[in-house]
């Protein structure tokens, strides 16, 4: 199954070129040009990794991250930043982002971080499934609670 990536950045040409390059590398890529659209898409669909620009007009990266962690806490986030906003990216990591990269970035570095973030999410989801199975085994009535 392809890794589902959401790219969030207000720079249209940048995000379209990056989306095409990631699609060539077999990722399932969706694009948002602003924070509000990103939150709408996150609410409706599931993504494994979000690549999120720190500074955007309107709802910026920090706001999107905060909202995201409320609605889809398991989705991993990689912050994209310019030099002056490294502090914001590090602050994002304290608030739950997986990592950050500075723009412009090497594609190999971004792909490496996407894969590691996806792996972390997949392992976390597996632990949750294992815990649910254990709960059902220990208390069969727990299966009824699930429905």
């Amino acid at each position, binding site marked *: 199954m392809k890794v589902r990536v959401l790219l969030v950045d207000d*720079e249209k*040409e*940048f995000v379209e*070129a*990056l989306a*095409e*390059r990631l699609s*060539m590398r077999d990722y399932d890529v969706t694009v948002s040009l602003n924070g509000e659209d990103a939150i709408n898409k996150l609410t409706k669909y599931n993504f494994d990794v979000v690549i999120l620009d720190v*500074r*955007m*007009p*309107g709802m*910026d990266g920090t706001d999107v991250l905060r909202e995201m962690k409320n609605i889809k806490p398991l989705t991993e986030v990689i912050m994209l930043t*310019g*030099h*002056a*906003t490294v502090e914001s990216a590090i602050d994002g990591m304290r608030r739950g982002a997986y990592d950050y990269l500075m*723009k*412009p*970035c090497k*594609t190999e570095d971004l792909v490496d971080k996407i894969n590691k973030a996806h792996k972390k999410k997949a392992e976390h989801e597996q632990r949750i499934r294992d815990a649910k199975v254990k709960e059902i085994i220990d208390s069969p009535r727990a299966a009824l609670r699930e429905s």
Partner: protein
Amino acid sequence: MSFKHNAAGRSGLQFFGKITASISHEIRNVFAVLNENAGLMEDLILLGEKGMPVDQARLKALAQSMGQQIRRGDGIVENMNRFAHEVDHPVKEIELNETLGLLIALSGRLAKMRGVTIDPVGEEEIMIATNAFFLENLLWSIMEFAMEAVGKDKTLTIVSHASERGVQIRFQGLENLPQIPSDGFPSALEQALLASLEADFSINSSSEDIILTLPKKIEAA
């Protein structure tokens, strides 16, 4: 150096820092687009070398996009250069609408981050002799304050015209001005700039605008 100049100088340094940081961010965005477009060309060519048909039109479009980004970057650097040269002379003759246009270009990204469109209106050529850097600093400070007060359409209109005294610049579209506390503005830094430029300033909650009046000429300090 007088208190007036110390405060104006301090304000100038803050203004200079803010504008150059914004310019560097814009240039980085240009590099980011160029980086991805160059990478995409490389990817397409690599696929071609492996036997997949090469989409010539796609490569051409990418090359054109890169050319547009280079022109965009060149424009940003040219504006940065003009801004840097504003401090060459303590007093010089400027065309006001040109100076306002440069300031709007330099601060475009900062206004965009706040979701505000700046609409300059000034048809006539207005020549004044003033300190261009201090003027841009003051105009930016007023714009920052005014952007908090714009109405639902988020458009700040700046109208400039010649007056008896020199020139009047009116910041309009400030529907939320009555709700914004204005006792802290202008601060000591803006007041120092107003004094340096021999300018008058008023905030009008009833007419929902801000008026800045500048003389035709100031003396070099």
